[in-house]
C-alpha cells in the first residue's frame, strides 16, 4: 500500500468530530497502562473493546503514548524512578568529585583534628544560616535529618554524603526536618556527613557547616 493510498484512507477515517468523554470512558490509570503496555490480557481486551469505538479514549491513548516518548518526560520518569540521577552529564561527574574534594579538605583540615568531635554549632549566626541539630557525632540510629529554622527562608536543601563525598541523598523541603527514605541504607561504624542550604532569596542560598555522624555499632552478640 502506497503513501497516497494511506492518505486517502486517512481522509475517509477523518470525521472532524470533536471527541467527547462519556461515563464509559477509561480511567486515567487504564489509559496509562495501555500506553505503557502493562495491562494483562483480559483487562486489555476489555479496554480495547471500548477504545475501538471511542474517539476520546483513542486520542488519549495516542497522546499519552507520544508524551511517554518525549525526551524530557522520559528523562524525568527515569529520575523519579531512580534509574537516572538529575543533572547534566558533566555535572553528574563533576558534582561528586567536587563534593569528595570538599569532604576530604574538611576532614583533613586543622580545625577538625579532634577525633569524634564536630565543629562548634554555636559559632554560626542562627538567623542567616541553618544549623544542623542532629544527627551529629555517634548516634544510635538515624531516621531523619534536623536543623534550625532560618528567618525568611521558605525552602531548604539537605544533602547527605558518604565518607568519600558521594551523594547518598538530596532533597528540598519546606520544613526543618527531612525523613530519610528506606532506600538510604546507613552502615553502622561508617562515617557520614551532611549539610543543609536555606533559600534566603531568589536563587540565593546560605549553607550550614558540614557535620559528621556515625551510627554506633550494636553490642556484640
Amino acid at each position, binding site marked *: *500500500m502506497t503513501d497516497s493510498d494511506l492518505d486517502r484512507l486517512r481522509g475517509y477515517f477523518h470525521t472532524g468530530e470533536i471527541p467527547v468523554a462519556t461515563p464509559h470512558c477509561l480511567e486515567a490509570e487504564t489509559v*496509562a497502562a495501555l500506553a505503557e503496555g502493562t495491562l494483562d490480557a483480559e483487562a486489555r481486551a476489555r479496554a480495547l473493546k471500548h477504545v475501538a469505538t471511542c474517539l476520546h479514549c*483513542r486520542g488519549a491513548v495516542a497522546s499519552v*503514548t507520544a508524551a*511517554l516518548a518525549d525526551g524530557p518526560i522520559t528523562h*524525568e520518569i527515569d529520575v523519579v524512578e531512580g534509574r537516572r540521577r538529575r543533572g547534566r552529564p558533566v555535572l553528574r561527574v563533576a558534582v561528586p568529585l567536587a563534593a569528595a574534594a570538599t569532604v576530604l579538605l574538611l576532614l583533613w583540615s586543622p580545625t577538625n583534628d579532634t577525633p569524634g568531635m564536630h565543629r562548634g554549632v554555636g559559632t554560626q549566626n542562627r538567623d542567616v544560616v541553618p544549623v544542623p541539630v542532629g544527627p551529629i557525632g555517634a548516634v544510635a540510629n538515624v531516621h531523619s535529618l534536623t536543623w534550625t529554622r532560618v528567618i525568611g527562608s521558605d525552602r531548604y536543601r539537605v544533602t547527605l554524603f558518604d565518607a568519600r563525598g558521594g551523594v547518598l541523598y538530596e532533597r528540598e523541603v519546606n520544613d526543618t526536618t527531612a525523613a530519610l527514605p528506606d532506600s538510604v541504607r546507613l552502615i553502622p561504624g561508617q562515617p557520614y556527613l551532611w549539610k543543609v542550604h536555606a533559600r534566603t532569596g531568589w536563587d540565593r542560598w546560605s549553607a550550614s557547616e558540614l557535620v559528621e555522624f556515625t551510627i554506633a555499632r550494636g553490642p556484640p552478640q
Partner: protein
Amino acid sequence: MAELQRGRIDAAWDLFLDRYRRLIFAAIRHYAQDYDDVMDVFARVCESLREADLKRLRTFIAQPTHTARFSTWLVTVVRNLTIDWFRHRDGRRRLSTVAAELPPLRRRIFEHVFLHKRSHVEAYELMRSADCVGLSFGQFLVEVSATYRAVGDGRRGRILRELGGPAPPIPDTDDASDTVSERREELEDALSALSPEERVAVELYVVEEMPAESVAKVVGWPNAKAVYNHVYRALAAMRTRLSTLDGAGRPTSGKT
C-alpha cells in the same frame, strides 16, 4: 505515601511536589510552550491534585493493585488537566489569538472546528448558510486541511492538534458532503467487521500516525512487524469489502 497514610496531608503534598514537580512541568511543556500558559496550567494541576485532601493521589494509592506505574498515571492526569484547561478556561481566549493570524476564511474554519468543536460537515453547512461561502465541500476540505497545517506548525501546535484531532489529508476529489458521509458509513461497516485489537491498531497506525512499535505495545502484539502484518491485512480486507458496496452502502452483487 507514608505521610499520606499518617494523615499528614501538607507534609505529603510537599514531598510529592518535591519529587514530581519536574515531571509535572515536563508533561505540561509537552502540550504548552508559552511561559504564562505553563504556569497557569501548573497552578491548575496543583489545585486539582490538592482538592479534597489529595483525593486523587489517595485514591490511586488506596488501590490494592496497580496496572500502570505512578509516574505514567501522573503524566496521563496532567495531560487530561492540561487539555481541559485549554478547552474550558483562559485557553479559549489565548487560542483565539492564533486565529487572528489566519486569513478570514481559515479564521472562520478555526473558530468553528477548534473553538466551537463542530464537525467539518457542520462547519461547512454553517459557513455556507450564514457566511455565504460558495465553496464545494471538497474545496472546503482543502481549506480545512490548510487550516490544520497552519495552526499545527506553530508553537501551540501540539495542543491545537489535541483539541482538533489529527489533521485531515487534502482531499483528491471534489466530493459532496453527503457522499463523504456515505463513505464514512461504509467505512464504519468495514471497521466493525474487524476484531477490537485490529480496529484499534488500524486507527492508531493510520489515523493517529503512531509508530508501529508503540501500537504493538498498546494492543499487546509482540513487535512492529506484527502490526504491519495485521494492519495491512485488515486494510486489504476492508478495501475488498468497500469495493463490493456501491455508493449507498449496498452490495454490488446480487442487486435486484
